[in-house]
């Protein structure tokens, strides 16, 4: 049995609502790329046509040295967004305030447009598995995560952005779909959503549901960022390796996401097998071109 089969009728999207403390929806940044150390020199010595960069927060949560010095120079020239992998927002372990303090210190230094992480957990009992682990979509888990998001947002003094992760297993005790969970989480906590197009594709394939159902189930006014990435197909399941070029199916789903969510800050995310910068710029250009095509009024030619 699959969790998605428990849904009889697609639910209407929750009504738009004001985020906590009246926080405004983050600006549209255009078409960006994940900043990777392999490209530092080329970015700093050139002027690549990239609108903004997303940085992995943990790579800069360091005492000092070259990474922070480079980031300082990048942020002088490009808008920067901080994307973490260790917030472990859905963990039932006590909150890691030392991590949060370091994250807040980095944010004060970098002044990112927003701070994102994943709807997942990374460990309990004092251990870190350094993986984006899945959760059961239960009311109990939802209450827990809502409380954690509120705590983190209060600590950081701003709403956070949470991303859907690729998952390989589903829990038999789930009471709702992932998109219902994310919608409720965003509605109750005021967090924004990062819609990872590849992760939706991967999870939909792995669990046998229609990725468009996921897409339709997410409130359009809460999505502030897209991730576009590649994966490894294993035949019976897909592993989210972020080490391949974006495949055609994911490009198609991106176009569908644009039709559903409208203009959203978009970026290419490559975490492994990092190719030369120009290869990734081709993908960034494609995100821009598809958006121009999908979002332009009918009959109007986009140059």
């Amino acid at each position: 049995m699959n969790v998605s089969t428990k849904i009889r009728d697609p639910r209407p999207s929750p009504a738009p609502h004001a985020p906590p403390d009246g926080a405004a929806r983050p600006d549209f940044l255009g078409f960006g790329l994940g900043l990777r150390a392999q490209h530092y020199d080329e970015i700093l010595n050139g002027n690549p046509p990239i609108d903004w960069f997303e940085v992995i927060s943990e790579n800069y949560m360091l005492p000092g040295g070259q990474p922070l010095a480079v980031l300082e120079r990048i942020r002088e020239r490009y808008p920067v967004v901080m994307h973490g992998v260790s917030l472990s927002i859905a963990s039932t372990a006590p909150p890691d305030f030392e991590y949060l303090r370091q994250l807040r210190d980095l944010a004060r230094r970098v002044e990112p447009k927003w701070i994102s992480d994943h709807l997942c957990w990374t460990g309990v009992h004092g251990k870190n598995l350094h993986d984006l682990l899945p959760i059961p979509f239960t009311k109990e888990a939802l209450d827990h995560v809502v409380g954690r998001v509120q705590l983190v947002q209060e600590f950081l003094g701003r709403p956070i952005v949470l991303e859907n992760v690729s998952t390989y297993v589903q829990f038999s005790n789930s009471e709702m779909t992932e998109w219902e969970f994310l919608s409720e989480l965003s509605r109750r906590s005021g967090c924004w959503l990062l819609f990872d197009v590849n992760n939706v594709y991967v999870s939909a394939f792995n669990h046998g549901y229609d990725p468009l159902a996921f897409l339709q189930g997410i409130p359009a006014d809460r999505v502030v960022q897209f991730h576009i990435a590649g994966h490894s197909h294993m035949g019976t399941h897909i592993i989210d390796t972020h080490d391949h070029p974006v495949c055609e199916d994911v490009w198609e789903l991106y176009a569908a996401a644009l039709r559903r969510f409208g203009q959203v800050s978009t970026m290419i995310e490559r975490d492994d097998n990092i190719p030369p910068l120009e290869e990734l710029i081709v993908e960034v250009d494609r995100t821009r071109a598809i958006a121009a095509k999908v979002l332009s009024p009918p009959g109007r030619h986009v140059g």
Partner: protein
Amino acid sequence: MSDFARQQGEFQRGILASDDSVLAELLDSPKEKRETLFAVYRHAYSARLVEAMRSEHELLHAYLGDEAFDQMARAYIASHPSQNANLRWFSTALPDFLRSTKPYRGHPVISELAALEKALNDAFDAQDCEVLTLAAMAGFVPERWNDLRFRPHPSAARLDLSTNASTIWLALKSEETPPEAGAPAEPCRLLIWRQDVTPMFRELAPEEAMMWDEAASGIPFGVLCSMLATYDDPDGAAARGAGYLHSWITAGLLAGVFGGD
């Protein structure tokens, strides 16, 4: 304990201890059994940590080769579950692990190579700090020099090696065949630091190593010169001390001076 917390504990045990109890709470997918799907997490856990260790210890990896390095890494992973949210610090205890664990402890060059790489990694992202300049030193009148104390740059660290690990490091860095592991008669005294953004190390003679260690612990220049006088020609001690100091300042090894006013 909540059901959610219990479930996370079981999921984690499933990954770390190959305990299959959590499978009872998972679903098969339309195309694959839950055992295979859960194995993705099990595999990813050790693969990611091994990869992180390869990245932190690139030259130890080159020295041992894929198979021996990965076997060593998996033994470390099993005995040192990650306790820090940031993967950057996962390998921190590797030199101690290699120094104290069979079979690696029988080959001290391995732990010393790891210790040197760790020291260079730590220097790479150590705290930023202004460095002491020769111009700043010129502001002190000669009669105050005896009272001057020095603050090392936050990236500076000392390492004493009993093997030729630093020679092996240099060969591996140049992609040359490293020499046979061996133990020189005298320990190899290294000073590791970051100059601008580049981690560096150099070997110190016994006298300079002594002066650095004492200076780093806050001993004033006048006393340092008296100590140097016990190592070599007493009449040249102050000049030698001033020479070492000059080289440290130009290399960006000192962050500050105090006590001269």
